[in-house]
Structures are given as C-alpha cells and as structure tokens.
C-alpha cells in the first residue's frame, strides 16, 4: 500500500470557530485524482483554503505525508498583472521550497527541471512571452509547469479549467490524467464544472453547506449519492 499523501481525519472547516460542514475524513494516495465538487458557496473554496494553510481547521486533523511535496495551481485572476514577469519567470518562481531561497544559485541548478516542466505542459514556446498577455488557457499551462518544476508529489488545483472552453478543458484534464498515471502524482482539484470530472477523477469530495453534506470516497460512490443526484442529476453518473 503506497504512503498516504494527505490525510483528513475528522476535519472540520469553517470560519472563526464556526463549522461550515460536517467532519470529513479521507486519505489521498499517489496516483489518485480527487475532485472537490459542489455548487457555488457550498464550501469548496473554504476546504481548499484550509488545505492550503490559509485557514486554520475548526476541528479534526489535516496531515501531509512525511515525504509529500506539495504544489499549488491557482485559479484565474490570482495573478497581479502589474507584476512584470515572463512565463519562464513564473515557472522559476515556483521552484523554491523551505529555506532554499537563501541559496542564490538554487534556481540555476533547477534549470533542467524548469525546462522539462515547460515541455511537459507544452508551454516551451511561451517561455519568453509576457505572462499577463497570455490567454487563460496558456496561463493555466504555465501555472501547471510551475507546479511541476518543483518536483511535487501532490498538486492542489483551484478551479483549473474555469476559464477554458470545452476543448481546452478536455485537453487540460487529459494532461492531468497523464501526469497522474505517469508520475504517480496525487491531484486534488476543486471544480464546479462537471463536464469532465466524472470521466477523469478517481475519487471525489462532495460538499454542500445547505444540506450539511461532506462526503468523500471513490468517484462512483460519490456520484451515486443522493446529494449528487439531487443537484446534478443522473446524466453525469451514467458516463462513469
């Protein structure tokens, strides 16, 4: 059995000590793609912010595996466009871990990893482009390259396909699926676009603040739940 990358043990999320959802337990392992699904305002973002460390849990435990190396792919609009940067600069900026920023030559030594990450996400040609001028789809590829350049074992993704058209969204999911299979990455992805989640996710966490639901498990199990059928219908389930 492979090592657990992320363990949620009765995790309760919320703000200022007030729980938002029931306690949630789950174990994320290498090679799994977990989708955090739910409607707008259901608690997905709060859960993701808690996983990122931006919010403290209200209760329970959240623990990363001992050898877990985590990276993050933000959603559109999370970049300050006034900050001057080319695509390659964005990728370089994601390489540091821990105290490596005190070593002036650390990024230089990661040159090959940076180049490989750009290549893997088909973003090589964008390297010298000004980041702010890229399309949303191109930006997502660069964000993903940035995450890969730090040689992660787990990647958290916040609505990575929200700005993409259907074709680009499918390509993005295919890329994530390939990375999951080939690199054995654990992926945790927040999304309210359900077009491709059922086909590519292996597991899901369904949250619904109104119905006080926090359900985690294999994708088929979650999509077969009453809460999922209530909000999304049965069509998507049949595709799995």
């Amino acid at each position, binding site marked *: 059995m492979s090592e657990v990358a992320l363990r949620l043990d009765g995790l309760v999320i919320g703000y200022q000590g007030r729980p938002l959802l029931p306690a949630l337990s789950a174990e994320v392992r290498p090679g799994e793609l977990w989708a955090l699904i739910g409607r707008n305002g259901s608690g997905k973002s709060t859960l993701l912010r808690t996983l*990122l*460390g*931006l919010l403290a849990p209200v209760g329970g435990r959240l623990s990363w595996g001992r050898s877990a190396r*985590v*990276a*993050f792919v*933000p959603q559109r609009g999370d*970049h*300050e466009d*006034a*900050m*001057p*940067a*080319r695509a390659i*600069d964005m990728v370089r*900026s*994601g390489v*540091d*871990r*821990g*105290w490596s*920023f*005190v070593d*002036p030559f650390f*990024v230089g030594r990661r040159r090959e990893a940076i180049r490989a990450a750009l290549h893997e996400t088909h973003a090589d*040609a964008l*390297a*010298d*482009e*000004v980041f702010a001028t890229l399309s949303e789809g191109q930006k997502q590829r660069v964000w993903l390259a*940035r995450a890969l350049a*730090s040689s992660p074992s787990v990647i*958290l993704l916040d609505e990575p396909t929200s700005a993409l058209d259907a074709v680009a969204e499918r390509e993005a999911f295919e890329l994530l699926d390939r990375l999951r299979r080939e690199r054995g990455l654990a992926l945790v992805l927040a999304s309210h676009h359900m077009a491709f989640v059922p086909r590519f996710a292996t597991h899901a966490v369904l949250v619904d603040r109104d119905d006080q639901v926090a359900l985690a498990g294999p994708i088929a199990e979650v999509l077969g739940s009453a809460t999922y059928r209530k909000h999304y219908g049965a069509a998507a389930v049949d595709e799995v």
Partner: protein
Amino acid sequence: MDSLTLTDFYAAWELFGTPALTGAIIGLVLGLLGVYVVLRRLVFLSAAVSQAASLGVALSFFAAISFGAEHALVPSPTVGALLVTFIATLVVAGRRGRSTAWRDAALGLVFLVGAAGTLALGSRIVQELADIDSLLFGSAVAVLPEDFEVVAWVFGAVLLVHVLWWRGFAAVSFDLPGALVRRLPVGFLELLLFATLALVISVGTRIVGALPVFALSVLPAVVGARLATNLPMALGASAAVGAVAGYYGYLLAFLHDLPVGASQTLVVVAFVLLGEAVRRVPAPPLRLAPGIPGPRAGQVRATSRVTARFAVAVSAYVLLRPVLAGVAQVADAPALVDPALVTVALALGVAFAALGAVGAVVVLRRPRLGLGFVVALGWVLAAGLLELGEELVRPVVLAAGLLAVAAAFREASHRIATAGSRR
C-alpha cells in the same frame, strides 16, 4: 550671479558629498523595496509610517515627562519611533489575505492614530513638540557624518538581505498560497519584509525628510515595474532609478538653487514621464523574417543580449560616475574615474551597439530593432559628450540620456531577448 557648475560642486565635495551620497543610498534601497510597496498596493505606507513614528517620539517625550528621562522603561525618541513604527507595520501586514479595502483602511487607521495621537499628546509636551519635527523630518540639505554612518550601515544591511533573499520576499508577496504549501517560512519573511520597510522609511524620513522618502518609495518602482520584463529587472531598475534620482536630485538642487527634497522628487517624476513615453513606443510582436537559418539567428540573439547589457552597463556607469567621483575621493581611489577607463568603456560600447544595429537590420531584418541599438549608440555617444565637457550637464542633455537609457533598457531586455524564442 554666475550659475554654479559641477566643478563648483566637486570643489565643495567635503560639504556636499555626504548629503549627495546619502540621497543616492536612500534612493537605492527605497527604490528596491518600493517594488513591493507598489505591487502590494501599499503606496501610502510611508505616509502612515511617518505618522506612526511621530506618535512614537511623542510617546517617548510624554513618558520622559511623566516618569523621568532616566527611568529604565522610558525609551529614547528614536527607539520609541521604531517601536511604534514596527507595531504599525504589523497592523498593516496583518491585513494579509483580506480585501484591498481592508488593507487601505488599516493604512488609514495607522495614519490617523499617529496624527491624532501626536496632536493629543502635543498638549502635554508643548516644549518638546518642536523637537518632534526636527527629530522626525530631516532635511536632505545637510546630513551629519554620524547620520551618514547610520544610513550606510542600516541601508547597507537591508540591501544585502533583500538582494540575497529576494526570491523569498517575492514568493510571500505574490504567491502566498504557493509559498505556504512549499513550506517557505512565510511568517518570518513577511515580518522581515515589513520590518525592513519600517526601518528604511522611518530612518530615511528622519534623515532626508518625508517628501523624498514618499517619492523614492513609490515612483522608482513605477518606472521599474512598467519597463522591466521580470521582477529581478524591476528591482534592479527601480533601485538604479532611486539612486540616480537621490543623487541627481541633490546635484540639480545645488546647480539650480532648488529645495533638495522637491528636486529629488521632481527628478524621479521625470523618470516616470520618460518611462511612460518609452512604453508608448510601438513594440510590434517580433518575429524573425522567413529564411533565416537558426544558428545565425541564435548568434545574433546572443550578440544582441551582450550588446544590450553592455549598453545598460555603460549607461549606468556614466550616470553613476558623479557618485563614483565622490567614492573615489572618499576612498582615495582615483582609478574608479580614470579617463582612460571611461574611454575604453565608451569605445567598446560604441562597437557593441553598432554591431547590434547591423545584426538587427541585416540578419534579423528588423529595422525598428536596429533603431533601438542606434538609440543605445546615441546614449553611449551622449555619455562621451558628457565626459568631454562636464559643463554640458544640463537638464536637457540629462533628460535625453535618460530617455535613451530607458529605451535601450526596454528594447534590450524585452524585444531582443524574445527574438529567438518566437521563431
């Protein structure tokens, strides 16, 4: 009365050298840190910090009156200013992750508490009130040698930390979630960033005054961030603009009998205007003409990069030469401004710029790119003129030179660097 010249300035270097170099050092470091101030939307930080420092000094005087100046718990005015300034910056830094409106409100809160608190305490420390202004809001006209030492040590240490650890500061400033998951010491870096900001703003304000500190902590960063293509370049350009503005502001104030703080502010404003002018130079996407063999394009690209960097280096050397003249005088190292060194640098600059222009036009078939090199060449020649006759240092020539530097910077750093990769 005859107008003053550079010769007069250097003849009186013992008197004017210290404040001119102080302006350059403060401009350099504030310019560098200003990039974080501007891009994190904290432009009123220096105004708020100045008021907080004012409250700290007032509290210190009040405590001295109430408990006696010798009491162990009564801080000196400087320590009081630093303490309150630090707390104030924590209040602002603590707004992290909330909306811009909340952060603005925090800045407003710090400013108003500082201003109102100083006024309220003013009624209890009437005799000392006049001292607060002189303690807090220095004048760039005259800088005491001991103040210069403080600036050199404090700003030097801050500069070193920021040059070495800029990646950490950039990560917590522009990618907080990423920095958290990659386990960077986010709290430590945020605290250090704001502590160094508070330190340079409060010390800078005490020594050269509030106006130039406000200007130098905001405007050089505007130039750097809008002309550069990445953060290290923005930090470098902003620091260079700050240093030049700090020094030349003093020089122009001397030559034209202007108030120093206003002169430094106006020089950096001129940089902003020139930078905006340069940004409006049409910069169409650069694509290599068909049929150019890859290796040749690569060679030209490499030459272009070297040329561009050299042009910028020569420009920086010539612009900073008056500063170097001061350093040479203080350190007794005349080789720093040896005319032979200047001549060799200029000759190489001309050769490189000409090579770049020919390469851009003949090989890359990009006349506009060639024009960029011609501009760089023009600046190198202008620099030569400046060397031939220092009396030519007048605002028009200076402005033309700065425009050329900015143009060369933009052309060199962005369009040239992207030439090969867009094929």
